[in-house]
């Protein structure tokens, strides 16, 4: 009789109690609490539409970075190089706008080519990470730590540490429009936020609806079992790191455009913020669990908290303490939730507020779809 054979009889939660609901929805509630508190403390500055838009724009960079991180963490890995990748991709974009001198003439690529070059840079870094981890069996922490330094160094080498400032391009060269990404709005919402929405939807569909998503959840939960079930585990891992690299590059392009300058130190320590967002969003660093919705909430919690503290005039040092406390609290609650979920009686929904089991047989780990949001 194995230990797991006993679990069906434990029923600490008959249906979903208030406590369990609060636990499930904690990231969302935390965001709500942050919003309400700062709205009370700074009623004229915090809850205004313009401030919310600005905050969302700031969050979008972290959120996109965190979604890439989520994919890697779900595989049971970690990617410490995304901050550096963000920096390098920004530099590639900045330099590409300055043109490439080829045989005496300077070639100015159009903006869409610039963006593709930057994203390809991110994908390449991700590919190297993935090959190191999945094929050459280097521990993810070490491989990506090394790449964090290598990539940051390369970013600085491109200009010997200087910042590239002129990113507007010239109409006669046909390379204007880069700032559109960082400054313009569609329907009153900044382009960066739209990109975050698109990346989130794409990632959400990827994780919940594609075979790749199924494989990722499976091998994150038990790599050996997944491999014996015919999952191409190494390929899935390599792609996870490529996705993280691409997300970092997209974030790099947006940030560079917003700042109208490409600096080689951009994105330093952003990887830690991304990890924090993923953890606050309920994903386990052991792999196999997590979803895009949670990670987005995690990024918003961090972003709104920082912005709110700044608005009410609390020093950056205190902000750091707050952010750290939120992360620790999140991990603490993740542990409590995991324990209670293990003890839950079978058939009880593991996520969402509804008391009926998910209709389509999705489980706790993969309630990662838009339909799931709509249902609860």
């Amino acid at each position, binding site marked *: 009789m194995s230990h797991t054979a006993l679990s069906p009889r434990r029923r600490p939660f008959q249906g979903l109690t208030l406590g369990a609901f609060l636990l499930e929805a904690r990231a969302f509630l935390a965001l709500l609490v942050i919003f309400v508190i700062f709205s009370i403390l700074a009623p004229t500055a915090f809850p205004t539409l313009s401030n919310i838009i600005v905050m969302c724009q700031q969050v979008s960079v972290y959120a996109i970075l965190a979604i890439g991180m989520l994919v890697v963490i779900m595989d049971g890995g970690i990617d410490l190089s995304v901050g550096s990748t963000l920096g390098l991709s920004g530099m590639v974009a900045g330099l590409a706008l300055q043109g490439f001198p080829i045989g005496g003439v300077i070639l100015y690529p159009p903006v869409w080519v610039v963006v593709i070059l930057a994203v390809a840079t991110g994908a390449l870094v991700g590919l190297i990470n993935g090959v190191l981890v999945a094929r050459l069996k280097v521990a993810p922490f070490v491989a990506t730590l090394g790449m964090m330094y290598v990539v940051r160094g390369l970013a600085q080498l491109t200009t010997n540490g200087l910042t590239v400032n002129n990113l507007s391009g010239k109409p006669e060269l046909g390379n204007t429009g880069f700032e559109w990404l960082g400054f313009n709005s569609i329907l009153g919402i900044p382009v960066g936020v739209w990109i975050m929405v698109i990346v989130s939807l794409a990632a959400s569909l990827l994780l919940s609806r594609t075979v790749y998503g199924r494989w990722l959840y*499976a091998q994150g939960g038990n790599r050996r079992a997944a491999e014996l079930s015919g999952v191409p585990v190494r390929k899935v891992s390599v792609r996870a790191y490529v996705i993280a690299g691409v997300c970092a590059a997209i974030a790099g392009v947006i940030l560079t455009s917003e700042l109208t300058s490409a600096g080689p130190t951009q994105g330093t320590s952003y990887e830690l913020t991304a990890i924090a967002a993923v953890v606050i969003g309920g994903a386990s660093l052991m792999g196999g669990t997590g979803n895009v919705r949670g990670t987005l909430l995690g990024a918003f919690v961090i972003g709104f908290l920082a912005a709110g503290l700044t608005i009410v005039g609390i020093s950056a040092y205190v902000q750091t303490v707050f952010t750290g406390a939120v992360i620790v609290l999140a991990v603490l609650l993740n542990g409590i939730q995991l324990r209670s979920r293990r003890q839950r009686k*079978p058939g009880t929904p593991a996520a969402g507020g509804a008391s009926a089991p998910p209709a389509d047989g999705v489980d706790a780990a993969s309630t990662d779809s838009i339909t799931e949001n709509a249902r609860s």
Partner: protein
Amino acid sequence: MNAAQQLGAPVLSARHIVKNYGGVRALKGVDFDVYPGTVTTLFGENGAGKSTLMKILSGVEQPTDGTILLDGQEVVFADTNDARDHGISIIHQELSLSPNISVRDNLYMGRELRRGLAVDYREQEKRSREVLAELGLDIDPHVIVSELRLGEQQLIEIARALLAESRILIMDEPTSALSANEVEILFRVIDDLTGKGVAIVYISHHLEEALQVTDQAVVLRDGSMTAKAPADEIDLEWIVRHMVGENFDLGSPPDGYEFGPLALDIDAVSVADPKEPDRMLVDRLSLKVQEGEIVCIYGLMGAGRTELLEAVAGRRPLAGGRVTMRKGEITNLSLRDRLASGLGLVPEDRQRDGLVPTLSVGRNISLAAVSTFVRGLFVSRAKERAHADEAIADVTVKTDGAGAPIGSLSGGNQQKVVIGKIVSTGPKVLLLDEPTRGIDVGAKAEVFRLVAQRARTGLAVVYSTSEVGECLSIAHRIVVMSRGRIVAEFDPSVTKEEIMAASGEAVVEA
């Protein structure tokens, strides 16, 4: 053992133990007595409440109602350490060793001998050697536990319980990874202990084996005690009848049909030991299996059965030889491609290699087939759900539905999920590595029925087992493996003794 004994006063008594988990009663008022110098064996199917009762007696869990009496005094155990201080030790089914440290340090983990502030390593080592010798183990106390075989690790666990010098020793499935020789050593140790007046509570799915050590048999079913008798008044049939509530027979191999063409041809396959490339775990072994045929590979732990099956499935590299299926050679294909061409492996250790604990029952059972449900970019949920429901019904998994967590199933049902996952991909050849390990009689019968039914429809089955009885109930042909080679081949008319003798196993009971 097995002699009629004067039981005297029980050293440990459980009176009317009730354990509720939420609204479900795991134990419904069980009375249970343990006598000094006696082996009390607890029989019951998965979910009957055996482990729950043992967890309560060893302080892991608290009863909802009822009392525990130790030497006639009422006691409450706060936790396992408290129980250990009262002289009660438990050997869990799952190993609780630290694989990264030495045998000696594992044996004394948590109760290191002190000399002043320092650990008395010399004394620990001396006593470790003594206890290892007592168990007939030729193991250096400095060896790191992860380098030992599973069976040896299990014996280390037992050695640790011996060192604690408990008055009451609870053994939950102590032999699941032991070879017949090692089981014999364990039984000799149990004999010594009972001679010293230690009370032993023994739990095993291996009924015949358990009967050999039993003095008192207690049968649990659905949280209640259904029968209790001294060993000399009972037999196997009595135990099974009280366990499942009906007469049970695992049946005989499916017959009345012709085998098809050759489905799997294993030709002179060798598998090297990854730690010592010169040592062959499987040595130029050849085996042919026809469609519809069930071939049992019988052998002891370490005979190379698992290595052979893993190599055929593509999990381990071959050191030599070829594997051919009906459609052609698969020697150079990846595991994934072999699965796609109809060769599936149900692994030995379902927790480690079979199940994804974070996924639901449905997601687990459809994992191997999920890439066939793709429509456009996405997985078709309708097809996935239909597949999961069909597979669950096909292998008769008892579950609340495809959305239930995998951890909510009993061991037998979890095993059915692992089998269903592979079977639902429509394989031509199925490799089953000890598929009945740690599952109850009822689930075992269902696994057998499933295998027999699939064989009738043309599935070629290679079934590895260390239980002789299973070979005779399921196999059309029995091959005996020892030291990486096939040493004998039998048809089902063979006796258990002949098979065991061929495997190099001492005949435990004539």
